[in-house]
């Protein structure tokens, strides 16, 4: 069908255009920092090809929008107009609008919306032409009204960012009387419901004579994590307006644009460097040759040719391994695609907070598995935001502390021992030990801060109790949502740690596995069953004498390991298997670490070490707690891969129950 054909080209067009938009954005940011005139040409070319493509592939709205931006750029390029902050600002917002349009194009929704119409009007106005109805004055129109209509639609991942819609609504209620209507349209059916995602939206009517900024301020924290429109209730607008144009607050459009961009990050195709493909084709060729060589052994086998067979098998094994590496390599993409979103974020955020921030990016070419890459963005955004918000001080404070007014935020990615390490570091104030300890005591996480190492204090902010802390206290804010960051990262099989020096700044270090698809694991036997325990979470395995085991009231068991008492988790109990060894000296304790705590996993014994190709259980079944996936053993049987963090949670839940 020709329609399907066009849709396929549209897909490619959209992906290329999104790259073009990224180019435009980064070039605009470079211009803003005093880049050379060549950048204007780059931006113009990108805009021009988007315009051309949009017209060809049936997106006239997009073509005409881009045309406005292109015309403005043309004037700059032709020297008729000098580039200045307002122009860069407007063009950046145009890029956001276009991103929004592409997302709507993907979702099959109408391309134009209030935001894009508004920006388009501004573009026209900038060029001195009569803008469409909603230009200029309309934007300022609703600055004060008797009542407001607020549409608030959090993105699915908003809770993961540590923000709670309920809190925002409560805060709104502080401004005046609310009448709220929940929008259930995005609520999935129960079987698809992920309780950690936000599915509801709200239409809120606020009856209070407040300013738009006051309302927008409530949503400051969720910028980029929701779609938001704040409009005066039509009959109550104080200033008479020509057109009751929807004039969403600034925060809303930028937020919406960036938010949708994150949502669209998980694209369905991947662009691969041609040399990667070439090397794979080579390998497949080699493999075919080896296979045909081995094929000659099928008929009339002569024992004299045994060495040749052995050689062939060795070759086969090598090709298989190389091919595996090569195929994995296709999924590996440079982390630059994640880093690239930060210049804009840092710019917007530092402007809003009145701080001066210099962003340094290192190791952008470090390659990461595509799946990891798509999921690491949100935790990083959170860390960056956190560093600017709470880590870096205001310019005057920095000057008083004898530092440069401009703070430095550094993002760094590099390899270390089979892992990828991503660091977010700032040269800000560092963790406020006292505030954190006080908060932790208040939350009941610790009894006192005495004798706590710096490391242990840093660890506290990752504790779940911290996430519910009121955002308002500035110092404790450092911990908001950190447990979610840790959880997101540990879902990827990685870890987060923090190092901090008072007055000198903090470093958040995320350590990630190279790929999610293959893990190293130990095969543990429990009765008739075999489970894979990921090697990364294993500390060591020990055999215990019965006297080393202490029981505590309530049925828990503890054992002494290098000076600390660790709980024993009996895998056969948690998973309900039969025929396992019951007495502690018969089996083996694997000391594992998950979610920041160590436990001893009791199994019958270890069978061996192997690489496991991770398969999803969810694809056909559902998530099973304590199990991160399945793999297929050499004999074709399925073995489950143990999720240590999940197991620890399962265990503590049983204990609590």
């Amino acid at each position: 069908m020709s329609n399907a054909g066009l849709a396929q080209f549209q897909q490619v067009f959209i992906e290329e255009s999104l790259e073009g938009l990224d180019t435009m954005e980064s070039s605009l940011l470079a211009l803003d920092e005093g880049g050379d005139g060549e950048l204007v040409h780059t931006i113009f070319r990108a805009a021009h090809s988007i315009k051309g493509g949009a017209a060809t592939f049936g997106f006239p709205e997009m073509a005409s929008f881009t045309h406005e931006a292109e015309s403005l750029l043309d004037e700059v390029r032709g020297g008729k107009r000098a580039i200045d902050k307002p122009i860069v600002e407007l063009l950046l917002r145009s890029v956001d609008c276009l991103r929004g349009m592409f997302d709507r194009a993907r979702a099959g929704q109408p391309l134009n919306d209030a935001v894009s119409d508004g920006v388009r009007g501004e573009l026209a106005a900038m060029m001195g032409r009569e803008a469409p109805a909603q230009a200029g004055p309309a934007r300022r129109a609703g600055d004060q009204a008797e009542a407001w209509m607020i549409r608030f639609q959090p993105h699915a991942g908003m809770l993961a960012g540590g923000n709670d819609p309920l809190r925002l609504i409560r805060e709104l209620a502080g401004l005046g009387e609310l009448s709220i209507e929940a929008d259930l349209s995005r609520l999935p059916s129960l079987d698809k419901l992920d309780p950690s995602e936000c599915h509801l939206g709200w239409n809120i009517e606020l009856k209070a004579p407040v300013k738009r900024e006051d309302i927008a301020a409530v949503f400051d924290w969720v910028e980029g994590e929701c779609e938001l429109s704040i409009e005066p209730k039509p009959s109550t607008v104080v200033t008479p307006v020509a057109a009751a144009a929807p004039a969403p607050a600034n925060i809303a459009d930028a937020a919406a644009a960036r938010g949708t961009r994150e949502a669209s990050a998980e694209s369905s195709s991947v662009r691969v460097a041609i040399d990667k493909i070439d090397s794979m084709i080579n390998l497949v060729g080699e493999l075919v040759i080896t296979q045909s060589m081995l094929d000659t052994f099928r008929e009339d086998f002569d024992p004299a040719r045994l060495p040749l067979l052995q050689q062939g098998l060795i070759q086969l094994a090598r090709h298989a391994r190389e091919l595996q590496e090569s195929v994995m390599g296709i999924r590996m993409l440079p982390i630059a695609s994640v880093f690239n979103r930060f210049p804009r974020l840092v710019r917007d955020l530092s402007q809003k907070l009145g701080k001066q921030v210099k962003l340094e990016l290192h190791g952008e070419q470090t390659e990461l598995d595509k799946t990891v890459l798509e999921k690491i963005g949100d935790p990083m955004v959170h860390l960056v935001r956190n560093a600017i918000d709470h880590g870096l001080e205001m310019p005057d404070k920095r000057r008083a502390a004898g530092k440069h007014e401009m703070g430095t935020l550094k993002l760094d990615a590099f390899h270390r021992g089979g892992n990828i390490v991503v660091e977010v570091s700032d040269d800000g104030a560092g963790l406020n030990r006292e505030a954190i300890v006080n908060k932790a005591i208040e939350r009941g996480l610790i009894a006192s801060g005495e004798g706590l190492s710096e490391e242990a204090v840093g660890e506290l902010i990752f504790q779940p109790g911290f996430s519910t802390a009121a955002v308002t206290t500035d110092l404790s804010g450092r911990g908001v949502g950190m447990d979610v960051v840790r959880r997101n990262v540990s879902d990827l099989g990685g870890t987060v740690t923090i190092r901090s020096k008072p007055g000198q700044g903090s470093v958040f270090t995320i350590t990630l596995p190279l790929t999610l698809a293959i893990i190293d694991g130990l095969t543990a036997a429990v009765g008739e069953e075999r489970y894979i325990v990921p090697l990364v979470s294993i500390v060591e395995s020990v055999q215990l004498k019965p006297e080393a085991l202490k029981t505590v009231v309530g049925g828990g068991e503890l054992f002494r390991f290098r000076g600390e008492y660790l709980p024993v988790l009996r895998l056969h109990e948690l998973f309900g298997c039969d025929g396992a060894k019951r007495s502690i000296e018969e089996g083996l304790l694997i000391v594992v670490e998950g979610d920041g705590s160590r436990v001893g996993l009791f199994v019958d014994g270890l069978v061996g070490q192997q690489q496991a190709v991770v398969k999803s259980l969810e694809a056909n079944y559902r998530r099973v707690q304590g199990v991160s996936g399945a793999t297929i053993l050499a004999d074709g049987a399925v073995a489950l891969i143990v999720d240590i963090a999940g197991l620890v949670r399962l265990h503590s839940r049983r204990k609590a129950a």
Partner: protein
Amino acid sequence: MNHPANPAAPETATAVQYLTVNLAHEEYAIDILAVREIRGWTPVTRIPQAPHYVLGVLNLRGAIVPVLDLRLRFGLAREEYTATTVTVIVTVAERLFGVIVDAVSDVLDVRPDQLRPVPDMGTTVDTEYLKGLTAIEDRMVLLLDVDKLLQPQDAQMLEAALPAANDVKAVA
């Protein structure tokens, strides 16, 4: 979803093919479009926290596929598996799962007008897993609603989701 067997659409008078299977001396039919393949019984890997009728998962050329015993699903006693015991791999909404039955028997053509609603028989089998019955000569065949077999998904899902939501509290 193409479910031409929808009795509410009499204008599609074309017959739909069903695979019939035997279970506890009764004959059930599965929409043949949902059937992926039929395999002999092979041992499966047990999974924790599964409902009793989900025996475990098997490796279907690299895909991890849950397998349920239809007898257990219908609340019958488990029987020894014999040479005729088979696993019918079905696909519902792009998800694969295996259904263990006593034997496969036949392929039937059923026209929409041959479909009857299931009377409430008070039988062992809950009628909610049936979407109709049909009489072929003197045999009565019950049409299985495959979509509902891995159900009550909602209750299961809730059970799976709730502890996760409680985790935070339990750990804190």
